[in-house]
Structure formats: structure tokens, C-alpha cells
């Protein structure tokens, strides 16, 4: 008797338990949900609303003057700085993020080998994470400490300018002149790659070696596919880091516009700027996601192609079958109508 009850009980109560667990889960997550609504979604909507207004703070209170798309035309047509900065930012991010990621991967692979003093090198390469803050960077850059001393920046820049469009050449030149800063931004990425590399099963490499694979092949066929999700993670991290970094002049511009005393600027104007900026950051993230995010590798792709072919075959088989049935029906109908016999494969003709 007792045993039966015990067996039956969970089946009946499972739904309740699940419900209770779900409730507990919501309870645990609740503070964050409130936070997201209060500090993200609500302000997001509000700044979307602000975008269409010219907001003036007067002694009598805040005045909202609807201007329609006036803020945007102001930004794009009358303020030459913002569009220019956006283009530079776009180029800079698109150029710098791959540099950061590839550099981090290189360092991580070097540190992953059999190396003495690995801890010491890790210490050095992680050090910048502690230091990078806007003002410190500004100071170092303005004193020229961010340039690799042996590099002749001017010649690099002029060489680039001769065969690339100007804005692109400028951002690449910028990359060279602030090389150390860009290397400095890859501290966290190096550690992420390193811990991903250390989790790859050494048996894989052994098997590849036995089959005659060189280290070069091992890198392309084992290491890279395994850490591919980490590449995406690091690329996105780098984009976000660069976009919220105070070296980025766009965000200081937004802040300046927010508190500027002039008639046409203000909260509404700054909101419009911020929204456009957010859209561009999201687009860049999306770009990297599309480039690196496909989970399939070569084998998966082959499997998928094979499956697609199988499906196609099955479909044609079905089509033929269906056509056969249809034809059979037609023939039957015709036979009934005209009442003459055709050979249907059964019985005598």
C-alpha cells in the first residue's frame, strides 16, 4: 500500500512542485527584473520620447517643445562634428576589434605552450585591466606614452593615405599611433582565450599528431574551431569596451550636448544623439555576430547539405507517388465514363 502511494505521489504533485519552483525562480530574479524595467526599459522609452522634443529647463519648470525630426536634421545638417565622429568611430571599431582579438589569441597561444614564468607573463598582460580608465588614458596619450617609440608614425600614415580613402587611412593611422593602448585593451580577452585553450582535450592533439598532422594543421582544424565561440565573445566584449570607453569622443560629446546651454541643444538633442549612437553600436555587434556567430563548421555544413539532398529526394519520390495516385484516379474515372478497359496490371487484358 505504502509503496504504491509513494510511486503515485510525485506524478500527481509534479505539476505543483514545478509551479512552486517557477514561482521561487521568479522571486529570485525579481530584483533584477524590477531593475531592468526601472533603469533600462523605462528610460529607454523615455529617451525615445525625448528625442522628438526640444527640452528647455526654465525657472518655471521643464518645457517640452515638439520639434518632430528637428533634432536629427540639426545633428546631421548643422553640426558637422557628430557625423564625422560617427564615421571615425565606425572605422576605428571595425579596424581595432580584429586587431585586439587576433593579438589576444596570439599571446594566449604563446602562453599556452610549455613556458617558464607563465605566471609572470600573465601578470604583465593582465596589468592594464587594472589601470585603464578614461582620465589615465587621456593623460598617457597626451604625453605621447601610448606610441611605440621605434615606430615612425608619420611615414606609416602618409603611406596609407596614398592608397586608401582618407577616413579609413586616418583610422588605421590612429591605430598605429595608439598601438599600445589597443594592446592594453586586450587583457581580459587574453585570459578568456587562455582558459579556453587549456580546456581543449590534449587527446585531440595527440590523435592528430599520430595521424601526421603538423602544428599548423592542428591550429586550424582543432584549436580554432573549438575556441570559435570565445572569439565571438571576445569580439563583442571588445566592441562594448571600446564604445563605453572614455577615449571615445562620441560619448563625451553626448554628455556635453546634454548640459549645453544653447537653445537648440539639451536633453532632447542629446537623446537623439544617444539613440543613433546606440543603433550604430548594435549594428557593429550584429556585424560581428553575423561574421563569427554561425555555429556550424565544415562538417556540420556537409551534414546539412546531405540532409537537404535527402529531403529533396524524398520529396520527389512523394511527388511521383502522388502523381501516380492521381493518374490512377484519372484513369479510373475515364474508365467509368467511357466504359472501356485499359490494362491496370491485374487480371487479363
Amino acid at each position, binding site marked *: 500500500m505504502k509503496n504504491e502511494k509513494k510511486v503515485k505521489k510525485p506524478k500527481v504533485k509534479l505539476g505543483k512542485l*514545478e509551479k512552486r519552483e517557477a514561482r521561487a*525562480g521568479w522571486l529570485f530574479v525579481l530584483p533584477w527584473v524590477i531593475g*531592468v524595467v526601472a533603469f533600462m526599459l523605462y528610460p529607454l522609452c*523615455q529617451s525615445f520620447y525625448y528625442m522628438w522634443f526640444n527640452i528647455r529647463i526654465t525657472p518655471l519648470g521643464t518645457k517640452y517643445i515638439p520639434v518632430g525630426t528637428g533634432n536629427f536634421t540639426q545633428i546631421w545638417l548643422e553640426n558637422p562634428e557628430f557625423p564625422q565622429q560617427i564615421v571615425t568611430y565606425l572605422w576605428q571599431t571595425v579596424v581595432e576589434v580584429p586587431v585586439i582579438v587576433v593579438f589576444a589569441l596570439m599571446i594566449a597561444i604563446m602562453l599556452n605552450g610549455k613556458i617558464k614564468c607563465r605566471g609572470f607573463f600573465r601578470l604583465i598582460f593582465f596589468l592594464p585591466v587594472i589601470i585603464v580608465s578614461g*582620465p589615465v588614458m587621456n593623460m598617457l596619450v597626451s604625453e605621447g606614452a601610448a606610441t611605440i617609440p621605434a615606430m615612425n608614425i608619420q611615414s606609416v600614415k602618409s603611406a596609407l593615405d596614398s592608397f586608401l580613402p582618407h577616413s579609413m587611412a586616418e583610422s588605421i593611422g590612429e591605430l598605429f599611433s595608439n598601438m599600445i593602448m589597443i594592446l592594453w585593451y586586450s587583457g581580459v580577452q587574453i585570459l578568456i582565450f587562455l582558459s579556453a585553450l587549456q580546456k581543449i582535450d590534449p587527446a585531440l592533439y595527440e590523435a592528430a599528431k599520430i595521424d601526421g598532422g603538423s602544428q599548423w594543421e592542428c591550429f586550424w582544424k582543432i584549436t580554432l574551431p573549438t575556441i570559435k565561440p570565445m572569439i565571438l565573445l571576445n569580439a563583442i566584449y571588445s566592441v562594448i569596451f571600446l564604445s*563605453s570607453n572614455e577615449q571615445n569622443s562620441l560619448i563625451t560629446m553626448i*554628455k556635453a550636448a546634454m548640459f549645453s546651454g544653447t537653445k537648440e541643444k539639451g536633453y532632447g538633442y542629446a537623446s537623439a544623439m544617444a539613440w543613433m549612437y546606440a543603433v550604430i553600436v548594435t549594428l557593429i555587434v550584429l556585424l560581428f555576430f553575423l561574421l563569427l556567430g554561425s555555429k556550424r563548421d565544415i562538417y556540420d555544413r556537409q551534414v546539412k547539405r546531405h540532409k537537404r539532398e535527402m529531403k529533396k529526394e524524398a520529396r520527389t519520390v512523394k511527388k511521383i507517388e502522388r502523381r501516380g495516385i492521381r493518374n490512377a484516379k484519372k484513369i479510373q474515372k475515364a474508365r467509368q465514363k467511357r466504359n472501356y478497359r485499359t490494362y491496370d496490371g491485374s487480371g487479363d487484358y
Partner: protein
Amino acid sequence: MTAAATIKKKFNKEKLHRFVFGTKEKEGAGKQIVVYGLLICIGFVYLYPILYMFCTSFMNRDDLLDSSVKWIPSTLFVQNYIDAGKSMDFWVSLLKGVVIAGLPTLCNVAVCMVVGYGFARFEFKGKKILLGLLIFSYILPSQVTMIPTYVLYNNMKLVGTLWSFILPALFGNGLNSAIFILIFYQFFRQVPRVLIEAAQIDGAGYFKSFVKIAVPSAGPAILTVFLFSFVWYWNESYLTGLYVQGLSANSFWVNLVVQLSNFDTSFETMAQTGDAATNLNECVRMAATALSILPLLVMYLFLQKHFVESIDRTGITGE
């Protein structure tokens, strides 16, 4: 004779080749040299700005103008540090900076842990949407939400107080909270479910099993989140200047990084009143920079192991 010599030569060549390029079992010395060389070079490039900063900060004006002095100052000129420290109000700013970074960090750790546990342990409707929202909140630049939030704080009279940092942190929306929630989420997923279920069979409620089982096992993750959150809050000057300092020059809350960003003007005014023994030059500015990163540098030297191993232990790279 000649045949033997050629054989010997050939043999040596092979040996040399093996020594430099290595065999399948053993790495060659050539590769090792290249790797070490690269690492040391890049390491130097990494440290170059810091070395430059410290060297320059000890120079006096004569050294700065003297072209024969490039790296090592002729005298250890400490006056730069004294002046810069006075201008930045070093000790007070340091203490305030610790409070500004510390309190929100504590809230961040506590709340992110609870939320991360909620995501990792329970299954509920809408969990996927919420996780998507979490990642979205990380990608969204803070500038979009900054303006209405500032207006909100202004109406609540929170601008210029520490509450403008603590309040979002209490609701899991502090600086980079999304990353920390994800770290805890990853971490708690690795804690065996059986442990928690065993506690529940013994009569512990959801909250009690969280406090008694999950929290004590989350030591590494807590340490990681604490350190990173502290460092990021410490280095955040954009939002600190906006919310906590409230963009006013004589605000109560100010930290070293914000002081550094206003360093030029504050030093000028100090020099005008005659308190400074030196003029504003790059040595003083470098000394100020050095002062503002020194506290974290000291902390890093003591806790470097925890920093460096942190990412390994939280399992952010997934299993």
C-alpha cells in the same frame, strides 16, 4: 677521409636542425627563442607607458629640458608627487574613492549572486526572454538611458549622492552587472543539483538552501565579481562624474580618477594661489597619473593571483 668528414658534417647538420626546429616529441630551441623573444618584447611594450610615467614623474624641470636625460632622472625629485597629491587632495579622494567603489560593489555582488542563482537553479516561463534581455542590457550603451535616468535622479534629489550608484546596483543594474549575473549563472550551473535537492529533502526552503549550500560554494565566483566590480567602479569616471559627483566642482563625492580628469584646471588654480612649488608640466601630470593608479596597482600586486586565475575558475568559458 673525405667521406668520413662529409658524413660527420651531415650528421651535425641534422643534429643542429633537430635542435633548432625540434622533433615531433620535443620543441626546438629555435621556436622557444622566438616565443620568449616575442613575449619579452611585447611585455616591454606593455609596460612602456607605465615605465615612462614613473620615470618622468621623478624628473625636475632641468631634467625635462635636458636632452641627455631620457629615462633615468638625475635626482629623485619628489616634489612633483607632493604638489600633485596636494592638488588632488590625495588621501581624502582615496578614501572617498574606496567608498564610491566599495559600497556599490557589495550590493552588486549580493544581488547578482541571488539573480544568477535564480537563473541557474530554477526553470520558469520566460526565462529565455529574460536571459536575452540580460544580454541586451549589456550591449545597450549606457548613454541612451543616461539622460532620463539623470532626470529621474535629479527629481529624486539623488544626484551628487552615493545613492545614484547604490540604487541601480541594488536592483542588479549597476556597472556591468549583466556580466556578473552571467558569471554567477555559469558558476551555479556547475554546482551539482543533487546537493541542493538533498538539502531540500532535509527540509530546507529555497532561500535556506541558497544561503547554506550555494553561497558557501561560490567563493571563487564571489571573489572574481568583487574584484572586477571594484576595479570597474574605481576606473569609471564618466558616470561617476555625472551621477555621484553631479558635475559640480565642489561636490562632496569625488574620487582620484575624476580628480585626475580635472587635474589641469585644479592645479592651475592652486599654482595661482601660490601653494605649488612647481609649474604645471608633464612631470607633475605624470606624477598625478601615477598617484591615481597607485592604489589599484598595490592591490593588484597583492591579489594578482586571484585576478589572473579568476576567469579560469568561474568557468566563463563554459564546459
